[in-house]
């Protein structure tokens, strides 16, 4: 015998709901919202049926499976696949040259691929451009730092289609100040503002690789989907493609968050004509749609300086670069002291 325990959550704040015998409604202790049992059951049922649609994902590679290889790095456990490659294969993550080929089977076939359109030479140049205008970058880093390695990887992404609906309410104000006799009078008009609306999203990308830092992948977005093509193994030679190690349901939380935040932000932008608008309540409902699987091109560049490895990621389609740079503490404090001294001198002369 199985028992299903359902903990009802407040649609407004996700706090636990409890039944109040006095009002005959389910009430939230955290935000004070209350709902009828029918409302909550309807919403819970909607949530249960609103799982992401992964039905279109398939393992059938057809004739393309021939010549495809699956590799595991014994050093960092990265799992990759690629077409017949010439020469040795190095792990794109840890650089280990002894990757082990395995039997290629049981892998989901990507739906889409964006081929690399930025060549290796441009990636190197882009890194130099990335250093430009960074006053706090140590001069030694600029001069002596050499690219240790540059690797092109097709990174697995889940692309989520969704429609997000939100119901927001705000406390908005308009303030006007006038002078009446000896008094300055400030009149504030208060408004209760409500907005309900939706936003449809197509192919919100979330990287499906546990090894690839999410913040790096977010930072090199967006990709131009006009270049998105149905997957063809012909684009793989010369590059390795990482096997996804987080499934679509696992990564969905990030897509949910981004879609939810976006619809709320978009609705908030329609609250105009007020000086302040403080959000009082939000209820976000996601209509989860189709999930597709894509390989997107990323150049990974690593450099070493003072024993520390610096990683840079570059969008292999648009050339957008991301990577944190070291700060020269000496320069930092010199600039700090310079700005302090000049400002203090100007103020001293002005005030005296």
């Amino acid at each position, binding site marked *: 015998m199985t028992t299903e325990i359902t903990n009802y959550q407040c649609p407004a704040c996700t706090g636990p709901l409890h039944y109040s015998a006095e009002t005959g409604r389910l009430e939230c202790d955290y935000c004070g919202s209350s709902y009828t049992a029918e409302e909550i059951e309807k919403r819970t049922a909607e949530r249960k049926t609103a799982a992401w649609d992964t039905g279109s994902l398939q393992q059938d590679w057809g004739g393309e499976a021939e010549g495809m290889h699956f590799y595991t790095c014994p050093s960092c456990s990265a799992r990759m696949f690629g077409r017949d490659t010439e020469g040795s294969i190095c792990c794109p993550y840890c650089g280990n040259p002894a990757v082990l080929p395995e039997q290629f089977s049981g892998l989901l076939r990507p739906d889409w691929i964006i081929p690399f359109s930025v060549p290796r030479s441009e990636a190197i140049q882009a890194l130099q451009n990335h250093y430009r205008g960074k006053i706090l970058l140590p001069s030694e880093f600029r001069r002596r730092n050499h690219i240790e390695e540059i690797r092109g990887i097709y990174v697995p992404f889940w692309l989520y289609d969704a429609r997000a609906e939100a119901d927001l309410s705000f406390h*908005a104000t308009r303030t006007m100040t006038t002078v009446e006799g000896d008094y300055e009078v400030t009149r*504030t008009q208060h408004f*209760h503002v409500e907005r309900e609306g939706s936003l449809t999203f197509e192919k919100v990308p979330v990287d499906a690789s546990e090894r690839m830092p999410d913040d790096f992948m977010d930072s090199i*977005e967006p990709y131009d989907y006009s270049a998105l093509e149905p997957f063809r193994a012909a684009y793989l030679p010369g590059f390795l493609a990482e096997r996804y190690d987080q499934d679509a349901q696992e990564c969905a939380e990030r897509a949910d968050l981004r879609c939810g935040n976006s619809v709320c932000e978009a609705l908030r932008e329609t609250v105009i004509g007020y000086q302040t608008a403080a959000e009082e309540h939000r209820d976000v409902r996601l209509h989860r749609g189709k999930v597709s699987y894509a390989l997107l091109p990323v150049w990974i560049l690593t450099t070493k300086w003072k024993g520390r490895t610096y990683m840079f990621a570059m969008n292999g389609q648009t050339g957008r670069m*991301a990577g944190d740079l070291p700060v020269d503490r000496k320069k*930092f404090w010199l600039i700090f002291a310079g*700005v*302090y001294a000049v*400002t203090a001198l100007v103020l001293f002369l002005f005030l005296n």
Partner: protein
Amino acid sequence: MRQRLILTAFLCLTAFVPVQAEEEQPFHVLDEAGLLTDVEEDELSSQAAEISREYGCGLYMVSVKDYTVYAPGSVTEAAIALYQGYDLGMGQERNGTLLLLSMADRDYAIVSYGNAAHTAFTDYAKEWLADGFLDAFGDDSWYEGFGQYLDGSRTILRMAAEDTPLEKDTDPARLRTAQMMRTAVIFFVPLAAALAVTMILKSRMKSVAMKREARHYAVSGRPEISRQTDLYTHTTEVRHRIERNTGSSGGTTVGGSGFSSHSGKF
């Protein structure tokens, strides 16, 4: 002959000085409300006499049960009536300042008379003086309050004797505060500016961050609005009295009777 002239001049001088110094004053402290002990009264009286002599401006303290006995109008009029009635003041101009406390409704008035008193006890100085003793009188600490009146008056008279009568612009406490503000501005504003500049430069070294939105992937840039309500609920009103800087020119406002005054409640 020469010696005789010198002696005559000396006698004239010594004869004049005691007249000035020993100018008969009806009182310096008149405690009709019975707020002070005899010892306290004597002590305050001797202090007031000493300051009065030093600066040639009489200082007087009077407490009464009800000022309306002396003048039916205001507490200021009562103070003026007392000043004139007792022929207070020093020198030909009858320079002096009187503090009157009336216990019936806890009123007080400070009145000054004579050019020297007006020069020293400016409108600002009277307010400053009152600020000094009001807390003590409010706590029924009469001796302490009168003591503060005398200390304050000494400061006011000393500053006038140094040709810097107490005004907003010459108030040592205000000058100290202004100096501290200037020092704080010179210290903290550059600190904030240096911090802002270096933090902006440092933030440019970071280009990696998680994304929290997905607007780029929205089919349409604008949301489809299904419900829009803008409901006016109420208006709130806050009124602030505008501080008019009327006393910016400083000085002393002298009434038709020749007295300048300041009054209030303690």
